[in-house]
């Protein structure tokens, strides 16, 4: 399995040798001379600044140094069937009825279609969205109904005229759903706009309830306008958007909250003495959980389900040594909640690492059974499966999917134990009490999500 660093090297391998040394030296010498020959240099500086400002203006007004892609299918051809309904849908947004604005935008594009990567034929242009959206922005999305359709984003301040809108983004139209998810440099700056083809209903759900039985309860509300436009700052916890027709879901996915700082302390002592206190990892895990889910406040309890020391063998050698590991749950008033496991290495300023498959949602922590592969700092996953069972459990076994063979068993101390089973495995883990009765069981598979909360409730793509 390849690593991110290796693939980054592959990407970087496309770089040329940008031999700009001479230019750099010339630039430095020129700047040096400015200190000696102030008058002439000042003139050069003024000219340079003017030129730079012009360049910045041009760059800003053309969406930066890049431009939308041209190429086969941008100007002609029939749209793929997958996106045809989307391209044939009426304009969405609060300015869907503003014919003059849309005409002015299309006139701009037709005057210079190559600058937008769109066809110059008005009949092949589609205004998919036009509206003033939260954050005092105006957004117009125009697509080409061609063989390789592309859409462009034109944005400006609220109320901006067509000529003032700037080309700020573009992408292929290759799915039947438009999801414009922009985040600025600050974590909470940005917006999300989503819509699908005409004829589909759009509904939203937020603030899910995590119940004691481990299920998630959501209430869905229809969005009669047929689109979602939200300011990132106003995205509520657990927001999901569903685009569906009758009982068929075309798309369902999460919209991430802006990121929330944890309020309140976490009791670093693990429940029922499961493992030993690992305060650093517990604090980090609670922070990460609050940040990702937005669950924080007086009615949320952060509890440590299990924690321990954890040996880290870091191939980069910066964190090798005895680190810590902790599984922390955000226990909600409904009795359940999301959980996350996090490891810290031995660095003085510890690096933390999310766990391969120990994030999700559980119900009552007294009854829950967690099975997770321990985190790894090297190429391959570890063979070790960590089991965190109800405190009454004294033994656990792993039963293979299909033939029901018991692949491994382990004694449990305070409900905690480990099984050695190389990945990938798929089956059921059962925990037994001292009398041999099953006190908990759950299915397990080596599907690694690495703390990605979008996988707590999986994205649905019905195409």
């Amino acid at each position, binding site marked *: 399995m*390849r690593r991110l*660093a290796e693939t*980054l090297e*592959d990407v970087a391998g*496309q770089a040329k040798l940008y031999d700009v040394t001479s230019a750099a*030296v010339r630039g430095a010498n020129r700047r040096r001379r400015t200190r000696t020959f102030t008058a002439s240099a000042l003139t050069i500086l003024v000219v340079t600044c003017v030129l730079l400002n012009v360049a910045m203006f041009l760059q800003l007004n053309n969406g930066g140094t890049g431009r939308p892609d041209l190429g086969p299918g941008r100007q002609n051809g029939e749209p793929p069937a997958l996106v045809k309904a989307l391209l044939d849908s009426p304009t969405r947004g609060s300015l869907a009825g503003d014919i003059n604005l849309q005409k002015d935008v299309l006139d701009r594009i037709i005057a210079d279609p190559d600058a937008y990567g769109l066809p110059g034929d008005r009949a092949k242009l589609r205004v998919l969205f036009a509206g003033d959206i939260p954050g005092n922005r105006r957004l117009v999305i125009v697509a080409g109904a061609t063989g390789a359709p592309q859409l462009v984003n034109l944005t400006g301040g609220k109320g901006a005229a067509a000529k003032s809108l700037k080309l700020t*983004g573009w992408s292929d139209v290759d799915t039947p759903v438009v999801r414009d998810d922009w985040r600025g440099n600050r974590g909470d700056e940005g917006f999300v706009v989503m819509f699908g083809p005409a004829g589909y209903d759009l509904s939203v759900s937020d603030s899910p309830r995590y119940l004691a039985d481990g299920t998630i309860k959501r209430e869905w509300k229809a969005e009669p306008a047929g689109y979602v436009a939200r300011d990132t700052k106003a995205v509520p916890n657990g927001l999901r958007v569903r685009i569906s027709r009758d009982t068929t879901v075309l798309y369902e996915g999460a919209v991430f909250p802006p990121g929330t700082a944890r309020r309140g302390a976490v009791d670093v002592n693990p429940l029922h003495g499961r493992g030993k206190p690992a305060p650093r990892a517990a604090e980090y895990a609670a922070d990460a959980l609050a940040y990702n889910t937005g669950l924080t406040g007086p009615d949320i309890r952060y509890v440590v389900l299990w924690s321990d020391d954890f040996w880290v063998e870091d191939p980069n050698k910066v964190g090798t040594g005895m680190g810590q590991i902790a599984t922390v749950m955000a226990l909600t008033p409904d009795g359940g909640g999301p959980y996350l496991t996090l490891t810290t290495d031995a660095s003085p300023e510890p690096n933390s690492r999310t766990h391969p498959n120990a994030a999700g949602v559980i119900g009552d922590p007294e009854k829950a059974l967690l099975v997770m592969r321990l985190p790894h700092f090297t190429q391959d996953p570890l063979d070790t499966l960590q089991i965190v069972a109800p405190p009454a459990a004294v033994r656990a076994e792993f039963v293979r999917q299909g033939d029901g063979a018991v692949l491994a068993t382990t004694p449990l101390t305070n409900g905690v134990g480990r099984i050695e089973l190389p990945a990938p495995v798929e089956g059921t883990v059962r925990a037994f009490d001292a009398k041999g009765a099953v006190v908990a069981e759950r299915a397990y598979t080596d599907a*690694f999500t*690495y703390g990605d909360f979008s996988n707590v409730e999986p994205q649905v793509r019905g195409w």
Partner: protein
Amino acid sequence: MVDEEGFREFVQARLPRLSRAAYLLAGGHAQAEDLLQAALIKAALHWAKVSAAGDPEAYIRKILYHEHVRTWRRRRFLEHTTDVLPETAGGDETDRAVLRLVLEQALAKLTPKQRAVVVLRYFEDLSEAVTAQVMGTSVGTVKSQTNHALSRLRTLAPELAELVEMEVRS
């Protein structure tokens, strides 16, 4: 005058790595060339002091990062999650090429700081503390930016969930 010889020697020795870092940050040849040139001009201007300090590469890395963020602030690209993801059939080399393409597309949709933190942490292999020094920010901010960036990568391209698994440090 700049100590041209010393500066040239340093840059020539480190040019391949600097070029690759600039390309990863900028995402295109022309932009990478501009970015690297701007950074080297600044380094050359202060070369005597930079070389005397003993870690010219760290200095240039810091300039690269700040130039990258400054330049991108003018661009303000919108991000989309609707990019084409190539088919994943094929042999190892095909898979490798596909991953490269997917990662490149996903990187282009990160914010400048998110992109920078990925490059600094996972390409340059800097610790969180050193990354914080380069970015001129706190370790906590590096952590949160890294978390944001990796979440975004996974959201933009679920294929990357497996790819990043060995390197994830939230």
